[in-house]
């Protein structure tokens, strides 16, 4: 009896009176309105333009293309970086895992920039390189 009484108790919310037991009626009415007028609610603002098969295929193809492109590009970049690390490891014989900082004042020997500067100097004058290798880490 107490539950039934609570269900029909009229409650004031703002200036409107609501019966708590009748809220589901409002939800149902809102759902019915949404269900009865779906034609004016397009998921995509340009989907209504899909007129024929070619257009539908174009929408599908471009969606797939734009979805896959960043994944492929980032994947290629990471794959290239991994292959590069493996190649450098094989070349220098050192692991690329994080290691301790060398003692202050020593220069890293496996610096690509330093090696490259030496190469340019060697190409310019094959006598003797006169440029000191630079540090590759701050």
């Amino acid at each position, binding site marked *: 009896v107490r539950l039934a009484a609570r269900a029909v108790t009229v409650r004031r919310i703002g200036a409107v009176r609501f019966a708590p037991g009748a809220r589901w009626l409002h939800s149902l009415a809102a759902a019915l309105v949404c269900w009865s007028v779906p034609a004016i609610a397009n998921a995509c603002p*340009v989907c209504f*333009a899909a*007129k024929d098969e*070619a*257009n539908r*295929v*174009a*929408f599908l*193809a*471009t969606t797939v*293309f*734009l979805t896959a*492109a*960043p994944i492929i*590009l*980032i994947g290629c*970049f990471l794959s*290239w*970086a991994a292959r*590069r*690390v493996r190649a*450098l490891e094989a070349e220098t014989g050192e692991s*690329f895992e*994080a*290691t*301790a*900082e*060398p003692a202050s004042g020593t220069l*890293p020997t*496996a*610096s*690509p*920039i330093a090696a*490259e*500067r030496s*190469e*340019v100097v060697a*190409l*310019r004058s094959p006598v003797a390189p006169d440029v000191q290798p630079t540090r*590759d*880490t701050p």
Partner: protein
Amino acid sequence: MEATGKILHLSRKMPAARRRQIAPNGVIGMLIFVITEIMFFSGLISAHTIVKSSALGVWPPPGQPRLPIQETLINTVALLVSGLLLQRSHVAYEKGLSSARRPLLWTLLLGAFFVVFQGAEWAALLREGLTMTSSTHGGFFYLIIGIHALHAIAGLLALLWCYRRLVSGDLLKSQLLTVEIFWYFVVGLWPLLYWRVYL
């Protein structure tokens, strides 16, 4: 405060992780930039594909001038050859700086030919009535091809900078490689644009 001081004291004693380069910074930066550029052009090409497929009837729309397919094919070949010559310049660089000059110069000349030829083509199309506002065809043509032309001009300026450094003997391999990546992007993108926009 005491705990913070202890942590700071410990962090000074702990050896910092040593970073190693897998490639020069310029190359990494250019690769990331090219990735964003690919996405940018992907958006443009996708939009063009949708509009082209939405057009009822023929494309380009009736009354609009047709794009010069044969003439642009010559331009396409010139751009592709410039890419090959840049690769040859890269190989020649390994042997000596002076031997890389000639292929790099030819790359520059062919790139300049491409841009000038495009300019002449645009002038002719404008005279025929194809403008940015004449139709979606014109709008997309000038937008996509124009942005590519801007990239080609930027690439030419970078190649010119490379050539000057090469002549003075200051060009680093990483600098050449950075500019190469950008130019390969400009060259590699063009056949796709030619196929989607011109054909």
